[in-house]
């Protein structure tokens, strides 16, 4: 009990207090201390990799072993990981201990630039389609709130692109071509700013109070729910 709970909680409190205090201390020592801690976390952080790799692969092993639906596809996870790690260690013939060669292509770079990058970019870009469909489906002025939501959206959306200047000029005369952009800016600068400031202040109070709970060992869920 002492080792499993008490000491960790004490550790949290002590280190947290140090972290809190050093923020107020201009003395060089506090700077050096922070540098040291940073280095510690860089080191510790590296080890999280093993947990990640294990838990991910573990799930796919289970799928394959249990012949769960679509287990065959899980093989490709191992394929991708294995090949990528292999070429990464091979590192264009220099081996894992050398720095990556800058001047030439390695298969590791190739895999990154031709598999990972296009996949990420494509999935990200799917948002374009989803925004269109989401907007079409849900931007209906059913009540005041919804009306405000869609009104603001339409104005800002339109005001952000050059075409709005053309349309504005055509509607309100050349002198007023900036109508839509200005309206969009106004919305962004006043109501939007207000709401965000509200959320921001509320959330930051939440953050602080949680930090306090953690420091005083009241919030412990990060230690894992069950004790033993």
């Amino acid at each position: 009990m002492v080792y499993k709970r008490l000491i960790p909680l004490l550790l949290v409190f002590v280190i947290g207090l140090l972290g809190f205090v050093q923020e107020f201390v201009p003395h060089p020592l506090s700077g050096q201390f922070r540098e040291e801690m940073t280095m510690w976390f860089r080191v510790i952080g590296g080890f999280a990799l093993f947990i990640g790799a294990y838990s991910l692969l573990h799930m796919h092993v289970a799928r394959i072993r249990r012949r769960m639906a679509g287990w065959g596809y899980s093989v490709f996870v191992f394929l991708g990981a294995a090949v990528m790690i292999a070429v990464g260690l091979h590192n264009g013939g220099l081996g894992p201990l050398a720095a990556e060669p800058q001047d030439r292509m390695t298969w590791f770079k190739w895999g990154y630039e031709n598999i990972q990058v296009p996949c990420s970019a494509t999935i990200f870009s799917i948002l374009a389609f989803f925004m269109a469909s989401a907007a079409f489906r849900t931007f209906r002025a059913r009540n005041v709130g919804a009306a405000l939501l869609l009104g603001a959206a339409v104005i800002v959306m339109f005001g952000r692109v050059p075409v709005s200047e053309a349309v504005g000029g055509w509607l309100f005369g050349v002198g007023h071509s900036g109508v839509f952009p200005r309206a969009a800016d106004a919305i962004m600068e006043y109501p939007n700013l207000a709401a965000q400031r509200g959320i921001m202040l509320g959330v930051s109070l939440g953050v602080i109070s949680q930090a306090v709970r953690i420091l005083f060992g009241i919030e412990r869920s990060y230690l894992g729910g069950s004790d033993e």
Partner: protein
Amino acid sequence: MSEPETRTDGKTPALEMGALALLVVVFLIVSLVRLQPFSPTADTASAIGIIVAAGLTFVMYSFLYRDNPLFKIAENLYVGVTLGYGAIMTWRLSLMPEVYDPFFNSPTWGAFWNSALHRTVPIILGVLLVTRLSRKYGWLSRYSYALMIGWGSGLAIPLTVHSYILQQLSSAIAPFHETVAHAAAVPIFSQAWFFELVLPALGAVVVMIGTVAVLFYFFFSVEHKRVGGAISRLGIFFLMVCFGASFGYTVMGRMSLLIGRVQFLLYEWLKIPK
């Protein structure tokens, strides 16, 4: 572009399977014709790279139409590749420079002892972190989190107060007296008076009312009835405008991502001239 290149999933009729196969063939032919990967002059590796990238792009888009075997393959491959990439990068950027080199590549004994002195504890903590995987010894990892999360929380308090509370508070307060001070000289009912005093002041009022109303909406200890109800409704309205606005603002960014892909497919895969 989004017109799916593949149109099937396990259960759909042979017709769609056929269409899928056909599209794959078409894709390959087009690629080979446009990029000539095997012509003696071409840089085969990068040409094939572009073909793979373009193929994956289409496969990912095909999900927009329907889930299908090619997507399932791509999805799992992608998960694997990111894992592999992450692993190698962690080795290169964290484990090698922070753990391996300081001990096994130290130029002098001085350097070695130096790293032994400073790095032993964090390395032990790192190893403890990994015990998370074991049901029996998992609790050991708590020492590592305790350190990381404790430090994080301790640091978070003053920094949050600094940049999110004080900064925001002072810039929420400033506009009023600054506009008033600034526009003190301008004659009443002049154009300048309107644009330099009245408008900014109105804006400031809107922002303040909005901020307060939204803060009130997040008030949990009172029922939102009568006056309170009215204020929190106002808060909701402000939130709605805010959400609408950032949705509208976001469209732009998302569209440009799509544009990015289109540019890739047009300029690099199909090689159409700019």
